[in-house]
């Protein structure tokens, strides 16, 4: 068993390396500076979202509503600035909205005990519906003059490195610090490993779970800001896309077991690189959007099957309603 477990990251990394090498050799236009930039920029947002998802998955949950957190609060920032509010006020509103959203998620999961998959599926719809019905005038919220300077969050370079990559790196460091250096990071691992044992030990599991979803939503919002800054608009329809599956793919492929308690930031980075390469390669090969989804789905399926063999569900601590 042990032999398999510590190998998974390395297998994924090896697959990434092989894929990268193959694409570089056989795919024209793959190993060009511009394409690398695109790849990394696309990957950055995905990676940040992956970090948020990883945080929740390690605590034995899942957050389907991340895309709503990515789309709606940053969209709100753009919309408010467009309507003449100041940037800081708009940002503050968005952050408050995100916190409220995370609290709702966390409360539903920790206190009302709704399964996380289910709760976040519904709250995601709720937030997206709210945005659609009440907040935005158009599906794509445009950049306006009040946002001047903010695009530096997603564009340009810092010390020669594209800013979005730097943002991803910053997020990685923050999450790694939270998970490895703080007490509640350790609590998250404990809760993910065995929620009942964690609770019996005296860990305040409910507040920690709430915190987990608040932080995840906050990271999602940050990813959305980076994304909006890099494309100079917020396409709120992104909620309808299959982006969330990519995020799950990143986490599961990277080797963070869905049964919780395992994995870390490194897994997210590896997963992100693999997915980024794969998606980029397929785009260059001119595979249609549906075809890409098909391939992604199959890969995800294989990943989940492998995951279920490598990290079998613990029947003793798996809940009855744990679907």
């Amino acid at each position, binding site marked *: 068993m042990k032999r398999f477990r510590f190998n998974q990251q390395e297998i994924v990394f090896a697959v990434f390396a092989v894929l990268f090498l193959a694409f570089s050799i056989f795919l024209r236009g793959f190993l060009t500076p511009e394409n690398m930039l695109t790849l990394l920029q696309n990957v950055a947002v995905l990676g940040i979202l992956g970090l948020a998802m990883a945080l929740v998955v390690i605590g034995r949950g*899942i957050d389907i509503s991340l895309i709503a957190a990515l789309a709606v609060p940053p969209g709100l920032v753009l919309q408010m600035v467009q309507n003449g509010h100041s940037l800081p006020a708009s940002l503050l509103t968005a952050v408050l909205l995100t916190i409220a959203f995370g609290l709702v998620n966390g409360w539903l999961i920790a206190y009302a005990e709704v399964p996380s998959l289910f709760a976040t599926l519904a709250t995601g719809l*709720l937030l997206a519906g709210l945005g659609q019905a009440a907040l935005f005038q158009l599906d794509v919220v445009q950049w306006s003059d009040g946002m001047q300077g903010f695009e530096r969050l997603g564009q340009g370079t810092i010390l020669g490195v594209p800013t979005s990559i730097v943002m991803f790196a910053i997020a990685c460091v923050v999450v790694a610090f939270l998970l490895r250096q703080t007490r509640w990071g350790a609590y998250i691992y404990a809760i993910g490993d065995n929620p009942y044992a964690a609770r019996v030990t005296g860990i305040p599991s409910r507040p920690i779970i709430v915190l987990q979803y608040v932080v995840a939503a906050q990271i999602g919002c940050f990813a959305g800001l980076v994304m909006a800054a890099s494309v100079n608009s917020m396409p709120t329809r992104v909620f309808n896309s299959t982006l969330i599956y990519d995020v*799950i793919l990143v986490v599961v492929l990277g080797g963070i077991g869905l049964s919780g308690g395992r994995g870390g930031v490194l897994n997210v980075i590896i997963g992100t690189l693999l997915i980024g390469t794969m998606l980029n390669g397929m785009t260059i090969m001119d595979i249609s959007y549906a075809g890409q989804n098909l391939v992604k789905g199959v890969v995800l399926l294989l990943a*989940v099957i492998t995951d279920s063999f490598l990290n079998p*569900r613990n029947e003793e601590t798996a809940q009855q309603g744990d679907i």
Partner: protein
Amino acid sequence: MRDTLTSLRYRYWPDHLLGEILSKRWTETAIPVILLLIVGFALSRSIDHFLSPASLADTARQAGEIGFIGLGMALVVIVGGIDLSVGSIFALTDFCALYLLDVLNWPVPAVVVATLACGALLGAVNGVLIGYLRLRAFITTLITLIIYRSAFDLLIQRYSNSIAAAFPDIPSWNFIGGGDVFGIPSVALVYIAIAIFGHIFMTRLRPGWHITAIGGSRRSAYNSGIPVRRTIALCYVASGVLTSIAALFFAARLGTVGGDIGVGLEVIVLTATVLGGITLGGGKGSVAKSLVGVLIVLLITNGLTTLNARGGINRMALAGILLLAAMVDIRWQKNRTRIISKVYVAPTYHALPPPPATEIGQGGPFEQNDKLRDVELIGLGRIEAPEDVILDRNNNLYAGSRHGDIMRFFAPDYQRMEVFAHIGGQPLGMAFDRQDNLYVCIGGMGLYRITPDGTVEKATDETNRSMHSVNDDSRLRLADDLDITDDGLIFFSEATVRYEMDEWPIDGLEARGNGRIICYDTKTGATHTALRGLKFPNGICVASDGQSILFAETFGCSIKRLWFAGPKKGQVEVVMDNLPGYPDNINLASDGNYWLALVGMRSPSLDLAWKMPGFRRRMAKRVPVDEWLFPNINTGCVVKFNEQGKILESFWDLRGENHPMITSMREHRGYLYLGGIMNNRIGRYKLDNADPNYVQYDKRWGKAS
């Protein structure tokens, strides 16, 4: 005055019904039904023509289509999973039907069969992954949702034009899409047929029970030999097939393949399922719940569309309802038993006059003595809970044990012991019939017969269902004691219809007439309820006239007489009341009188509490069970009485060393044998002035040939 009011209030107000109704499974369906009525009423008031036939028929068509998917979703949720891929399966099978019909020009029956097969195949992928490979249902069906959707997108890119160009005009196809019989749309008819079958399947057939069992506890289901993996896999196949049926009707109705067919369908169906009250996580649900849920969701979404709500609002409403329903469902499931146990105990008013004196020096027939102090002990530490003891014609002694056995002690010294028969439930009262068959009342199981060679047979475990009870009282919960008449009628008492064997003291707390006397006819095998509304009926003994039985009401503290034949047939008469203790078994004495065991003595505190139902209800709600005020069964006695209701003699164990509590006694050849449900021994007491040749069943049935 106040007591009278209290007594009237508790006699006529059915407190006990609330708990019984709440503990019924159908109350969980009642809540969504009420919600449906409210939604329907509100919408019919705010929208014109909402209830017109045309509008209803249109709703019925949509409800039918979503209803099929709802049934499939209900099935997989009951088995403990979830199926998010239904929307994509719907789209793919819709495409499949139209492609076969419009592009390949297959005949309609072949299209139908092929579409169903396609649905089964798509469902089977889910089934194999979740059932056999044991993947998580949510994530797996989420992935198949993407895969199927991408496949659908790829297919319609190629074929949507040729499908859109075709206008098939086939009568049978049109009938599927738009036909009706007596105004009922075809889809609704098929739905009704499948729903009825589904209901029978889930409630009456073995596979349906397997599905519920797996959802309730997968591990237990596996341990009891249910083919868990196969059953789960087949549920997903069934979900796929049902979805493809819906897609067939949809294809026949609209005949188009738009890119957004079935997008978000899973959320609608899931909302419907949860809203109908089908528990996420499995084990609970029904066809009716699925239908109610679908109707509610459809009415709401259609209503919002008609009211011109924006897309976002529709989405929010659906998600909000989904969350609310899931929350209520989860909280209710979690707290259900606690809420019911709080309201289930419904004490009633029960007044008794002060009991006759039992103290030494006060005189009277109940005056305490120490006669039972030096009884011989049989089977000390080797038997547990001999509620009743009985001796056969060969002087062997039989007693029940807590382990579900009838033990036999061999004459003459009763040292050797064997398991005479294993039944599995707690044996209570016993009696021999003319052929030396031993009839035993088994708590929680019913009336059983043990032949002389030790074969166990069920005599009866049900009686007629009474019309006015909420609880199903056809099953026997606590058969207690019995006696057999000369004509082969067995009268046995059922102590309570509201509590199980292990909760019997709570019935004493209620002090309501929850018990009954049931008659089983050994000749015809028929069972009927002879008398109901008794306060914990217990001991039963045929009286000397052969036309009546004496029975004890434990918490009524009385002995009554019921005539089952002769001129007074059907009448009930009080023989003794206001006993100082709680009467248990009654048996014949050699001198023609009767032995009666008092299992415990009354206490002033409980007597007072019995007059204060409100106090006992508050106690049951607020205090943990082990601190409730229960009837005392620590100290009792044996008394002898005659048919006129006069106490002749009493036997006590004053120090409470050997037999402080006694539930039964039998006289045999000059000895009295004592049993007690809390005891680990059987007592044997030498009677003075008793017939040394008295054998109960020789006297009742005549000497053995």
